[in-house]
């Protein structure tokens, strides 16, 4: 299992590294064509031609309050927290400087209702769903939810360094979730306990009837912060080959910005910026180490 999850990653790393090697080592002609093509893209997506809400500035919406670890100190403009960092990175790719980014407050529930938007993009842990796509546009996903293991802070498993350390743990999850399937991917894991909903799984955790519960990382941040006193995230891991929850930047339906924002997100993914930001803000500073 360990090898299996890390495989796509190392593969991705390999591909990225070799691409980098190619880019640096190959003839200047290659490089020129590279810059030419990105130049083309930026011509279509240049600051001057981008039909933003406010000409020359990039208006980004999020909810108030903005929660950790997606934002920091309820101040989206400080560039701290995963989504704030991603938003600034996207703006940067589009050619907007940090001072050309304007933040606005939009409640989560109103963001994906149909109609005119007073923002260029909304970044607010919004899951991409087909139903929502009827009403709004989504960028390519900037985050695909990892699975997290929640344990009590005094648990022997709180300091797990790898998935193998969790083999002896009695884990639990909600029925019908990716999290439940994810437990099956932990090598040597005991048969999981299965609960009707997260509330019951949380109660079982408090009672010591399970050593840990598995939930997607965004839910885990909420559960550990607000629902289960004295609980921590022992770590996170990616489930392979399954449609997990993905977050996208939300835009007005049919927005002319969508393809440019898409390109920006894709290029951030390709050059590893997204992975770096994820590591910084959702693993290190959020105290949720990645388990392999």
């Amino acid at each position: 299992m360990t090898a299996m999850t890390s495989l796509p990653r190392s593969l991705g790393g390999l591909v990225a590294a070799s691409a980098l090697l190619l880019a640096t080592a190959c003839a200047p002609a290659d490089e020129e064509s590279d810059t030419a093509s990105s130049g083309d893209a930026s011509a279509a997506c240049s600051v001057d031609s981008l039909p933003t809400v406010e000409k020359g500035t990039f208006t980004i919406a999020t909810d108030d309050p903005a929660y950790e670890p997606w934002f920091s100190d309820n101040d989206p403009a400080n560039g701290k927290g995963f989504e704030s960092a991603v938003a600034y990175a996207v703006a940067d790719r589009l050619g907007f400087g940090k001072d050309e980014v304007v933040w606005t407050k939009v409640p989560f529930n109103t963001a994906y209702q149909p109609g005119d938007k007073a923002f260029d993009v909304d970044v607010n842990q919004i899951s991409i769903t087909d139903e929502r796509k009827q009403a709004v546009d989504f960028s390519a996903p900037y985050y695909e939810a990892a699975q997290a293991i929640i344990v009590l802070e005094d648990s022997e498993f709180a300091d797990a360094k790898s998935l193998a350390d969790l083999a002896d743990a009695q884990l639990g999850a909600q029925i019908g979730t990716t999290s439940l399937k994810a437990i099956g991917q932990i090598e040597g894991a005991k048969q999981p306990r299965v609960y009707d909903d997260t509330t019951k799984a949380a109660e079982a955790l408090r009672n010591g009837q399970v050593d840990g519960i598995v939930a997607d990382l965004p839910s885990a941040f909420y559960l550990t912060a607000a629902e289960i006193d004295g609980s921590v995230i022992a770590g996170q891991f990616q489930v392979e080959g399954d449609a997990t929850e993905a977050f996208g930047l939300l835009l007005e339906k049919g927005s002319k910005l969508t393809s440019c924002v898409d390109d920006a997100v894709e290029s951030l993914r390709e050059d590893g910026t997204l992975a770096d930001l994820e590591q910084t803000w959702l693993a290190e500073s959020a105290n949720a180490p990645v388990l392999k």
Partner: protein
Amino acid sequence: MTSAPHVPSARQAERDAFRRRRTRRRVLAGVLSTVVVLGGLTAAVVTSPGWDRVRATYFDAGHARESFPLVRDAFWLNIRMFLLVEVLVLVVAVLVAVVRVVPAPFMTPFKILATIYTDLFRSVPTILVVLLVGFGFPALGLAGMPTSLFWLGAIALTLSYGAYVAEVVRAGILSVHPTQWASGRALGMSYGATLRHVVLPQALRRVTPPLVNDFVSLQKDTALLSTIGLVEGLRAASVYQAETFNFTSLCVAALFFVVTTVFVTRITDWFMIRQMRREAGA
């Protein structure tokens, strides 16, 4: 019988022929009506517009094969559970029933407790008892409280079904004629000995059918223990169903419950008949 070959009279032959004809007609009518009624019902189901979807969703052979071993392994928990709980329930029920019928005045506080117990646990839905015991007991953090989900589940089901069965047993005791008590006492038996040797055996035999009813119901309610995280037969089936979006696994689980119920019912029938023969023949 006699050594001479028996030659039936013409009238007897006619009578026999008539009886054979009648039997044939009756068998024919029985078969025909069965075919018409059951066949009609089957045809109505099978030709219904949604049948193909129903068959693919609920009765798919591939999903049945795949989920069968999962459900079978998990169902072992249900079997262990109801075998254990049935014994516990009988003990609790007889105790509570006896406490409620004995006339001794010093028993009054226990009679009050027993009455509250049966009233309370017969009225609270079993699933709530399961949740309260399964999650609530361990939350108390008392020393010596069992932490194993299996035992917590067993306690919950025993509490709930003990109350039902206590009332059944009490009804059985009350149904034994007062002369039986009087005879026991007249023979010099103490009250307790009369209860033990004269009344209870008759009472329990009399309430066997409702008792089996409650036990069959209990066997099905072992599935409620899935709410506290135990992966029993039905839960294993639902996990499969949630993954595949196919309900066949649930029908497989149903099959396991049907087989256990039929098995238990036949065993009891046989036992009852043996008892009745013994009583009638003795």
